[in-house]
């Protein structure tokens, strides 16, 4: 436990400068935009120069860039992400309201991809070169090349429009009045297609990694020893080969967190899910720079947290990790 704590503390401390760079970099990137949130506000709702002036003063937009960066960093330290002009609400509230939908979507997609990816990977890797291996390898490669948003459209065309098995859009039936288990079931039905569209590419990735890892482990001496001992093939595959090939997949889980968060932007737009990713698209459409800024900062924090959790899981699975670094 002590080891895990040291690891966590070290990772949290080292992520502070990283987060600082993200904030400064994003701030100056969005600074390059022509026009600010007040311009966007006036375009949609109208107003004169006097109103623009007073709005800019109210939101601090009349000050210099450095002064505003300082103000922003200060309010960020107090967990205040500012105010969205487009939505007329505090940005943090907006993000916290949308985040659970995205976390459900991503969490389910990762769970689905990890489970089926390792399962099929074990089938393929159990006998490298077999017919099952070839079929799965070709299938996963094809799946790996499919753009998620297009897959989403095709899935919704087949399973929602033609077969009517699943709903086409949204996260739950609006104003259905469902509660408890019925509501959970309703949300699950809405999530099947988006989760598949988002997760299939990772399923293919995990399958390919698992298979490649197992092919590597098969060549090692301890597998030969297990065979020489006369262990059943099933036991060798599961206990010796698959087990040792599983560890790199855990690392991949953390590495893919950022890409998956990016992928949810498109998937949520395809399936009209009111989530965090769709909020990013809406922020761009409404030219709401502070909102976009908040979204990027929160997503960076999210990715850092996921990676920390993955590191802790890895240290728990592999006792060698982190034990030698306690002094540093």
């Amino acid at each position, binding site marked *: 436990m002590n080891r895990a704590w040291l690891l966590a503390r070290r990772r949290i401390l080292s*992520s502070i*400068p*990283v*987060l600082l*760079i*993200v904030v400064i*970099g*994003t701030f100056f*990137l*969005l600074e*390059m*935009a022509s026009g600010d949130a007040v311009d966007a506000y006036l375009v949609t709702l109208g107003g004169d120069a006097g109103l623009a002036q007073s709005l800019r003063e109210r939101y601090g937009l009349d000050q210099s860039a450095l002064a505003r960066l300082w103000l922003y960093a200060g309010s960020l330290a107090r967990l205040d992400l500012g105010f969205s002009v487009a939505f007329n609400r505090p940005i943090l509230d907006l993000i916290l309201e949308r985040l659970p939908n995205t976390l459900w979507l991503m969490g389910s997609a990762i769970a689905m991809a990890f489970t089926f990816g390792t399962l099929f990977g074990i089938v393929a890797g159990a006998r490298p070169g077999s017919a099952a291996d070839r079929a799965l390898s070709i299938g996963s*490669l*094809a799946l*790996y*090349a*499919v*753009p*998620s*948003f*297009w897959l989403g*459209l*095709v899935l*919704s*065309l087949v399973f929602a*429009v033609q077969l009517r098995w699943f709903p086409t859009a949204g996260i739950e039936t609006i104003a259905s009045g469902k509660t408890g288990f019925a509501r959970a079931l309703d949300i699950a039905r809405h999530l099947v297609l988006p989760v598949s569209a988002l997760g299939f590419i990772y399923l293919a990735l995990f399958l390919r990694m698992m298979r490649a890892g197992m092919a590597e482990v098969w060549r090692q001496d301890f597998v030969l020893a297990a065979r020489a001992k006369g262990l059943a093939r099933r036991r060798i595959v599961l206990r010796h080969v698959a087990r040792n090939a599983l560890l790199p997949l855990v690392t991949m889980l953390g590495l893919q967190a*950022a*890409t998956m*968060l*990016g*992928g949810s*932007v*498109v998937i949520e*737009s395809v399936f009209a899910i009111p989530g965090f990713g769709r909020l*990013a*698209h809406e922020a*761009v459409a409404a*030219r709401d720079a502070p909102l*976009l800024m908040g*979204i*990027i900062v929160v*997503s*960076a924090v999210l*990715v*850092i947290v996921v*990676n920390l959790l993955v590191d802790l899981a890895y240290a728990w699975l592999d006792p060698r990790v982190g034990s030698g670094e306690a002094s540093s």
Partner: protein
Amino acid sequence: MRRFALRFLRSPEGMVGLVLLACLVAMALLAPFVFPRDPLSIVGRPLIAPFTDASLPLGTDRLGRDVLAGLMHGARASLLVGVFAALVAVAVGTVVGTVAGFAGGLIDEALMRVVDAFQVVPAFLLALAFVSVTGPSLPVIVFAVALGAWTGPARLARAEVLSIRERDYVAAARAIGMHPAEIAFKEVLPNALPPVLALVSVIVASAVLIEAALSFLNLGDPNIVTWGSMIAEGRNVLRTAPFLSIVPGFGLVLTVLGVYLFGEGLVEAMAHRRGRQ
């Protein structure tokens, strides 16, 4: 080199990839000759079904634009963005990685924190923000995609440089009084490059997908036709004319597949050569 080419051609992955990519490049190059008109111009009645009109083999979209012309011209945008984004990403990444690995100390620490920062922000979100700030045009999209892709080459180049800089020929270059910058870029960088090049296929593939996703969200260059924008346009009539969204998607799948297979063939041929040395 000839043996390398032969080995590449003998691997089934490399061969299939090469054929797919050759078809795409041919499509992209021939597009302006086969369809000299702007693919965004209206050529006929809207929503002509495919295979019904001999002069418009794949029919027309919702605005009466030739689908086949769009498909061929769309290959240009995908390939251009894929290739140039990968070039920029590898160039920037290798230089940053070489500087970090060769300089060491505080410079290394600072540069790697910047790499970390770029890695914790989702590449697609970064591209989205960049395009929304600077306005959608092809060069901007190339740069936006490269922005999220240079960190991989940077990390790999740094790791290579760390091992190369301890070698004897680098010490020899120091001994004859070469400037450190000259050693870094003339002696070390060229030798750190080959492993980085193995990343190129992955970068090209993800660049093609990011460009498609951006134009699907209407953030692509509005003056050229891209597969992503064709899919988005077809989405409006998904129930009545699903063909319009499905066909350009196959273009994307085959492009990405071709790039992956080509890359895998190259890596395999390279692995053979290394094994022999």
